[in-house]
């Protein structure tokens, strides 16, 4: 019998204050696609990072192809044929796509960089995953979905025989995700072993043959995908069945909160007009790069070159800074939490209260107890573990970070709330809770603009759905008229 491609034997890992993994024993069969499922903070990323040489296990042993390995750096893991697509984007934004792709092994002539060879290799790596990007472009100029593609290309192109994908599709468009599925199928055909972490159940069942569920750092069980269905996995993950959260209807016909007329930002979007009423959730569908996030940024005073009219509560306003936007009652949960939302070394509580501190002060003193009470309420509802509250946010799992950002803007009680991919990287249980919260916020009279690349999410929550393509609104559907298919057609521009 051939040994498993990867074997974890009694692996444990603790971080200050938390046990991330305890006594995990797990075999990953060669050539399989093995899913890791679990709630936010269950330890999925930590397990992957051990295999990729970023963390060393405290106790226990790891085997790759039957041979015991002790990685002390990612370099060791790469040498042993293990690559990883990380959950958080980890690229050098000041450097080009080619440089990022070849970073671990820059082609050289003597000690010098062979520029042509590097670009050539980068193009080949991108071609390998069926992507087409300008390799000389600076990564910092790329939208988040393109950066994710760069990251996938870097891991796949390293020639690894074992690949860990940590929520690779959480910031990809549907089309790019499909291409990734094909890629994974192709890789498996070549005998590459994949470990796949995702909160999206349909893709887990589509791609993976074996599923391991983790809870609080321990293995709950490993089963073949054929023996399981979505609800069984969810039950294993959260230890109970997922209650059906009836999404409450918002109140239609509230007064107008936000009206946008002819909003234009040169090169980003053009002539965008719509209105948003109190109690209403309006969805923005579109492919990544269609201009949805740019519209959100302009509304929030982040684009100084936008023209057109914005009315809030009927008043023509000229929003120049986010501070101004917040004073007018706007809130924005941004797309890229790491860059646009988090203060990494501060605790979750302080991150969550950042936008409402003025409301919590008395003569510039922060009333710490009031702060804690307010934040705890949202943390409880978002199922953020109490231990996470006082921890620096950089040390928390990706999904937990997202919940904290959401808590920040829910706490701000904005009158117009813009949500840009609000459930990115959030586990299924919490996602249902977040959906319920969004509906509740709307029912209480807030106007919500929801940007999401997950069509089921848009369809479940929105009362109207606008489709953005090439920087223009190209479709407006009532919920009753909208379906995944009709939206996909509009998004892609197929009549």
């Amino acid at each position, binding site marked *: 019998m051939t040994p498993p491609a990867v074997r974890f034997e009694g692996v444990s890992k603790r971080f200050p204050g938390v046990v991330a993994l305890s006594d995990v024993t797990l075999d990953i069969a060669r050539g399989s696609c093995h899913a890791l499922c679990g709630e936010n903070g269950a330890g999925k990323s930590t397990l992957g990072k051990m295999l990729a040489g970023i963390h060393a296990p405290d106790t226990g042993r790891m085997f790759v192809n039957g041979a015991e390995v002790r990685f002390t750096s990612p370099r060791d893991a790469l040498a042993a044929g293990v690559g*990883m697509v990380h959950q958080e984007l980890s690229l050098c934004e000041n450097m080009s796509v080619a440089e990022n792709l070849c970073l671990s092994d820059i082609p050289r002539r003597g000690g010098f960089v062979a520029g042509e060879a590097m670009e050539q290799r980068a193009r080949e790596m991108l071609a390998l995953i069926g992507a087409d990007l300008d390799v000389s472009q600076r990564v910092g100029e790329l939208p988040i979905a393109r950066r994710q593609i760069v990251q996938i290309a870097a891991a796949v192109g390293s020639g690894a025989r074992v690949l860990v994908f940590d929520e690779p599709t959480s910031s990809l468009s549907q089309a790019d995700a499909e291409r990734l599925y094909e890629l994974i199928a192709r890789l498996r055909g070549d005998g590459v072993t994949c470990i796949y972490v995702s909160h999206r159940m349909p893709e887990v069942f589509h791609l993976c043959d074996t599923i391991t569920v983790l809870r609080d750092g321990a293995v709950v069980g490993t089963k073949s995908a054929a023996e399981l269905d979505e609800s069984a996995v969810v039950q294993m993950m959260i230890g109970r069945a997922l209650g059906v959260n009836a999404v409450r209807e918002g109140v239609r016909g509230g007064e107008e909160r936000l009206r946008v007329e002819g909003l234009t930002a040169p090169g980003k979007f053009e002539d965008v007009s719509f209105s948003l009423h109190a109690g209403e959730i309006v969805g923005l569908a579109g492919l990544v790069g269609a201009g949805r996030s740019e519209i959100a940024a302009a509304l929030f005073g982040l684009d100084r070159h936008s023209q057109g009219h914005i009315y809030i509560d009927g008043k023509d306003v000229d929003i120049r800074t986010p501070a101004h936007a917040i004073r007018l009652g706007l809130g924005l949960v941004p797309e890229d939490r790491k860059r646009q939302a988090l203060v990494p070394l501060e605790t979750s509580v302080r991150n969550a209260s950042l936008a409402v501190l003025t409301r919590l002060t008395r003569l510039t003193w922060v009333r710490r107890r009031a702060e804690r009470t307010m934040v705890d309420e949202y943390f409880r509802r978002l199922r953020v573990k109490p231990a996470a509250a006082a921890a620096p946010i950089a040390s928390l799992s990706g999904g937990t970070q997202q919940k904290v950002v959401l808590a920040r803007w829910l706490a701000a009680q904005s009158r117009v709330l813009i949500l840009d991919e609000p459930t990115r990287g959030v586990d299924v249980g919490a996602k249902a809770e977040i959906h319920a919260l969004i509906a509740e916020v709307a029912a209480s009279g807030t106007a919500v603009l929801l940007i999401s690349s997950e069509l089921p999410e848009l369809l479940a929550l929105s009362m109207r759905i606008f489709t953005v393509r090439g920087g223009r609104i190209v479709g407006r559907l009532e919920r009753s008229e909208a379906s995944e298919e009709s939206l996909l057609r509009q998004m892609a521009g197929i009549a």
Partner: protein
Amino acid sequence: MRDYARRLAGSQETGLVAVLFAATMALTLLAGSHLDRASGISINNFWNSHTLVQTATDASFFAIMAIGATMVIIAGGIDLSVGSIYALSGVGMALALRGTAPASGGAALATGLTTALGIGLLCGFLNGVLVVGLRVHPFIITLGTMWILRGIAFVATKAESILVPASLTSITKASLGLGGGLFPVPMLAMLALALIGTIYLARTVMGRHIFAFGGNPEASRYAGLSPARIQIGVFVVSGLTAGLAAFLGASFYGSASSGDAQGYELYVIASAVVGGASLTGGKGSALGATLGALLIVLIRQSIRTLHFDQNYEWIVIGCAIIIAVVVDRWTMSMTQRRFNFGTGRSA
């Protein structure tokens, strides 16, 4: 082609060269002239070979250090100890020369250069190892070594100034056929180092790693780069350039003391920053640092040439630093907008 134009227009150096050029022109016009007694020809007070070479020589000592320090800054660190490394290397070399009393100029050159560079290398290595080993921010570590190293120089010399043999001075003060009291060696060394530094940063793999690490240390580590090697590497380079500057300085002026180069670290950092380095890492250039140093010295020189009150020097330099950085960012965003406009989206 467009790519090239974009890079040229967007590069900090182009702007700096323009500013330097404009400043030189203005200074030449405003400087007035005097009659040369020997030949009876009217000579511009600034635009004459003597003042120009003198200005470049003044700049060369800390420009050389700025080239090394820029690499530390690109890697996301900072080196406050360069002035102290300069002092320690200078007195170390002077003491070694006094102890060995080399007979020939060649022997003096060999001994002087090895000790100065050796001490610089060791100090830089010490900085790097402390930063990596203790996991303390470079600002703190080099703030500490800044005092420690100068203290060692002070103790070693008992605060005396130590003479450097004249045979060595005659080498660094060689006229190389220019004659007329012109000493171009430090200036040439600066130019050579600017060239080497530029090639090193732009073309070598190690240079690329420095940029990557400064841009995103975590991503670099994930990509398998060795943070320790990069950090120690840049501090060693910074120490070496300080050692080289000390060698040139001490032999040029004929003596070394523990008080040399006091406050140079700020000139050095200012040069790097004016030259386009970002203190958050990931950005900067060797040529830029050199041009930055030249600009600072030019400002100093203009105050002298135009007979302004010397006391204003610091105020003017301070303003220049801030203006340079603001203008840099402004031109960057201008060029970016110009070239991104209308290219549309790729998705």
